[in-house]
Every structure is written in structure tokens, then in C-alpha cells.
């Protein structure tokens, strides 16, 4: 008999044995199935949740942005000449900040100067927030031009009197839909509408409100226009400067260098505030830890559950099995044949159990993710873990009884009570 033939024979024997003992086999496969299903389910659900969180993060703003805000400086007593000569956060800070050595990690910079103003068209007249923006603002905040055109670099440089509206603002001020090229009055400044941003829409779950509705209310003009024409500010002061740095570690370096630069520019006045990158890094790490703990916990629970089922099955069928082994040995089965048949049965049960476990695990996580309204994502890693778990259950748990059964003497086994 060749080896493959022998293996096929053994597999057939194992299958017969399993069919002869359906209860025992089912319970044993149940252990594997529970392990696989709970590992796969646990991983898939938390993975889906994490993916969703990442998606929301990416849409809402992400953690790759370093913001600089101006702050009020509280003086004790009369401010010194140095203090009163300070001009706050300016466009210069943003431009120079983009040139420090560690700024090569920065892939976009946006500036914002806000103002409150009356906005008038031939259809509407409302008090609105007006966003004076810089070059990368629209891209960094996920705005795309739906029709018309975006600001040109010339518009930004000269503070040209042009405006781009969000979808809500467009429908309020120009309900007829004829927008591009129309005049709009912002405060005292007449501007021309050159484009409209695409509607921004994002809901955590289906049927919930659009959390980006406010973004569609934007009335955007070049920041220079707000500073110079609307507020008479020659220093081009800003309300926010944002640097986008995909690499969080590089962000920490850049943050240090930027802080030195801005402090020097501001004559050593702490009149600005920088996002704390180190803290953010720490928070992200700990968030990863939380997920890892969830994974491990679900894995351990699965192990305990499956292991208990397995041990109980083994205990319950020990007497029966020992006698069986005794009979088989008495009629000439060598120990290693007993061992191999135990292991073959275990492999077969592991295969069957883990197949069922995959189905149940996927179904389970599908139901859960569906019920909390997030898309199901199945990570290849979770399959790897589940398979590993199945192998542990099927194999290691079978190894002990197999080794024990195959080593006993036939006399002891036959007399076993």
C-alpha cells in the first residue's frame, strides 16, 4: 500500500469512526467551531468598528493636521512697548513655517481668516460667517468644486474680490441655480461668485443627520480680501494656520521647530497656541492598545469556552474510548496506529468544525455590524488567527488523549473501569 493510499484509507476510517460516534464528534467539533466563530466574529466586529472610526476620522479632519491658533495675551499691569508692538499670528508665520528644515514633511498648508458680515444677493440678505481662505484650505477640508472654478493663485496673492459658495449658501443666495459670474455683496465689498463647492454629506449611520451640513454653508473668499478690504488689516492676521503632516513622528519635530520660529517672530510672546502632537501620538497609541486588548480578550474567552467544551467531551468519553482502544489493541492495532487514527479524527473534526466556525463567525459579525449600521470588513488577519485557533484546539487538545491512549498497555485498557 502506498502512502497516499494508506492516508486515504485512514481518512475513510476516521470518517467512519466519526459517524459511529456522532454525539462525541459533534461536541468536539463544537469546541473548534466556538473558538473559530468567536475569534473570527470578535476580530471582524472590532475591525469593522475600527475601520469605521478611521473613515470618520479621515472625513472629519484626521489626526494628521497641526493647527496654530492666535490666543489672547493677558498682561499684568501696563504692557511693555515690546508687548504692545506684537502683531499676533500672521500670514508670514505660515509662509516662514513652511520653510523650516523639518517642513519637508508638510504636504499642505492652509490659512483661515474669519469674519462675520452681511451677505447680500438679489435674492437674499443674511448675516453670515465669511471664510477668508488660503491655497490648500479647500483641498485640506475636503471641498471640491462642483461647477465654476476654484480660486487661482493670483486670486489668493492679490486678495481678489471673488467668492466660492457651499451648496447650501448657493441655494440660499441664488435659488434659481444661475450662479457663476453673479455679483454678491459681502459687507461693503462687492464680489463675483466664481464657483460652487460640491455638497458635503456624511452620516455615521444610515438615517442619521448629515454631520457636515454646516460645511455646506461656507462663503469662501481669499484671506487677503477679508484682512485688507473688510477689516483694514495690513498685517494679514490669521485665525488659524493648519499644516498637514502625514507622518505623526515628523509632526512632533516640526511642531518643535515651528514653535521656536513663531515665538521668535512674536518677540517671545506666547500669543499663539500649537496643537499638542505628543499627546495626540500618545492617544493614538493607546487607542491601538484598546483594540489589541479587545482582540486578546475575545481570543482568550474563545479559548476558555472552546477548551471547556473540549475537556468535558474528552472526560465524558474517556471510559468508552479507553475500552475501545483496549479492544483495538487486543486485536492487533499497534500504539502508533491508535495515535494516528486519533489525530486523523482530530484533523477531520478541526476541518469540519472550523468550516462551520467560519460560516457562523461571518454570519454573526454580519448581523452585529448590520444592526449597528456599519459596513462589515473582514480582515485576512482574523482568518489567520481563527485558523490558528482551530489548529490549537483540534491539534493540541487531541494530542494529549491520543498520546495517552496509544501508550497504555492493552491489558490495562481492557480492564479499565
Amino acid at each position: 500500500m502506498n502512502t497516499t493510499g494508506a492516508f486515504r484509507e485512514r481518512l475513510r476510517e476516521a470518517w467512519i469512526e466519526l459517524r459511529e460516534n456522532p454525539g462525541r464528534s459533534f461536541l468536539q467539533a463544537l469546541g473548534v467551531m466556538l473558538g473559530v466563530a468567536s475569534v473570527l466574529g470578535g476580530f471582524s466586529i472590532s475591525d469593522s468598528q475600527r475601520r469605521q472610526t478611521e473613515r470618520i476620522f479621515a472625513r472629519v479632519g484626521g489626526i494628521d493636521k497641526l493647527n496654530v491658533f492666535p490666543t489672547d495675551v493677558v498682561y499684568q499691569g501696563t504692557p511693555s512697548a515690546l508687548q504692545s508692538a506684537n502683531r499676533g499670528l500672521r500670514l508670514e508665520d505660515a509662509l516662514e513655517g513652511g520653510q523650516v528644515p523639518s517642513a519637508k514633511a508638510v504636504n499642505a498648508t492652509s490659512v483661515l481668516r474669519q469674519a462675520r458680515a452681511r451677505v447680500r444677493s438679489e435674492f437674499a440678505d443674511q448675516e453670515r460667517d465669511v471664510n477668508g481662505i488660503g491655497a490648500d484650505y479647500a483641498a485640506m477640508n475636503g471641498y471640491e468644486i462642483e461647477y465654476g472654478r476654484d480660486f487661482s493663485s493670483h486670486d489668493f496673492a492679490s486678495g481678489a474680490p471673488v467668492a466660492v459658495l457651499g451648496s447650501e449658501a448657493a441655494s440660499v443666495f441664488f435659488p434659481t441655480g444661475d450662479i457663476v459670474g453673479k455679483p454678491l455683496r459681502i459687507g461693503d465689498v462687492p464680489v463675483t461668485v466664481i464657483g460652487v463647492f460640491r455638497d458635503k454629506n456624511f452620516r455615521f449611520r444610515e438615517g442619521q443627520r448629515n454631520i457636515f451640513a454646516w460645511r455646506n454653508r461656507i462663503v469662501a473668499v481669499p484671506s487677503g480680501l477679508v484682512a485688507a478690504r473688510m477689516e483694514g488689516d495690513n498685517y494679514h492676521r490669521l485665525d488659524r494656520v493648519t499644516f498637514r503632516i502625514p507622518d505623526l513622528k515628523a509632526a512632533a519635530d516640526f511642531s518643535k521647530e515651528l514653535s521656536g520660529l513663531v515665538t521668535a517672530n512674536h518677540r517671545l510672546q506666547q500669543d499663539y497656541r500649537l496643537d499638542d502632537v505628543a499627546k495626540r501620538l500618545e492617544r493614538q497609541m493607546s487607542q491601538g492598545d484598546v483594540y489589541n486588548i479587545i482582540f486578546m480578550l475575545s481570543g482568550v474567552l474563545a479559548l476558555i469556552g472552546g477548551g471547556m467544551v473540549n475537556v468535558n467531551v474528552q472526560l465524558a468519553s474517556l471510559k468508552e474510548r479507553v475500552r475501545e482502544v483496549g479492544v483495538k489493541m487486543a486485536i492487533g492495532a499497534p500504539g502508533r496506529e491508535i495515535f494516528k487514527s486519533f489525530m486523523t479524527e482530530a484533523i477531520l473534526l478541526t476541518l469540519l468544525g472550523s468550516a462551520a466556525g467560519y460560516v457562523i463567525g461571518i454570519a454573526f459579525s454580519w448581523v452585529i455590524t448590520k444592526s449597528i449600521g456599519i459596513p462589515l470588513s473582514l480582515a485576512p488577519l482574523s482568518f489567520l488567527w481563527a485558523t490558528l485557533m482551530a489548529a490549537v484546539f483540534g491539534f493540541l487538545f487531541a494530542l494529549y488523549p491520543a498520546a495517552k491512549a496509544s501508550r497504555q498497555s492493552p491489558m490495562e485498557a481492557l480492564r479499565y473501569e
Partner: protein
Amino acid sequence: MKIIETRGLTKVYGSNGNAVHALRGIDLTVERGEFAALIGPSGSGKSTLMAILGCLDVPTGGTYTLDGRQIERLSGADLAAIRNEKVGFVFQQYNLLPKATILRNVELPMLYAGVPRRERRQRALELLEKVGIPDKANTLPGALSGGQRQRVAIARALANRPALLLADEPTGALDSKTGQEVLALFRELHAQGNTVLLVTHDPTIAAMAGRRVELYDGLLVQERQEQAA
């Protein structure tokens, strides 16, 4: 030709302090084609001798030759092969696999001997016919009467055409009528040329055998050659 030949066979259980000497030097020879009965009261060492002769256990001392093979120094795997090839066991409690069909129970020794599937099946069916239960192949042992189960056990014992048929109280769990039928089957098998060694404590059963070997306190006390009844 000798099937069984033992010289000074001893078996000691336990260690120095509380050692139990189950066998204390057995010299026994059984020729091919003999029908021998091994009798003796409980505690006389019958079961121990039976286990050693059946290669289920190894002696502490002495030599044992089964069908030309030296047994006393063999390892577990070799003993298993000898049991498979040369010994057919019939137990008092049948020792059938309760969840396997009758056919499979009979096929099992041939499976371990590596007999191809089709041949196994065919021989198992022949054997079931030979022991008088040809129509029970696909039932489970639980559905059979004691006598029928013992017939299955005998069919299984015969599967690999063993040199020696060893029966340990084969009628112990049967009523006297069924017991007689099973004994008749043994005699028939003996008539066909099988070597049979029957362990019993019942003198009337032993009387049916051609030869009676009596064991007492780990020693052969009496060996009597009788005319087969």
C-alpha cells in the same frame, strides 16, 4: 508442531516489598490442532497466563515461543503485530465495538493487517456465515443476543486465520443452552484444524476439551490427557 511452548514462565506484579507472584514457573506445550482447556480457581493465575499466551502482556521471566516466534523480549508494536497475525481472542464480555456494525467489527483485525477493502468485506461476510449469523452484517452489537455477540467475536478472532484461538470464559456470560451452542462452534472449529485454548473454571466445559491443563497458585498442578467427549 508446537504452537505454544513455555519454559519456566514467571510473572511478578509489584516490587520487592509487596510483590505478588502470579505465575511461578510454567512449562506448557500445546501442539497444533489441539483443543486444550485451562482450568483453575480464581486467583490461580489463569488470566495472567492467558494474557501472556495471548501476547497482551509480557512475562517477568522464562521463555515463550508462539508458532516459532520468541515472544518474551518483543516490543509493544511487535506484540501488536503478533496478536494481529497469530492470536484470535474471544472474551467473556465479547469486547465488540458497540458503535461499529457487526461487519466492521469482524473486518477490523484485517484492517490492521493491511488487507484491501474488498477482500476484507468478502472474508468478513464468509466468516459471519461460518459462525451462523450471515444476516446480521449491518446491525449493531447492541441489537444482538449474547450468543450472537459471542459468535461475532469468534468470527472476528478468526479473521486473520490465527495460529491460536484463545477463549477466556467464552460461555461465562451466556445461559447454558446458548453456552452449549457456542462450545459446539468451538469444537467444530477445532475439527476444522484450529488450535483452541479455552480458559474456564467450569469442569464440565473443560471436560469437552481434548486436554485439560489445571493451574493452582501460579503452578501447573495436573495435566491430563483425555479422550475427547
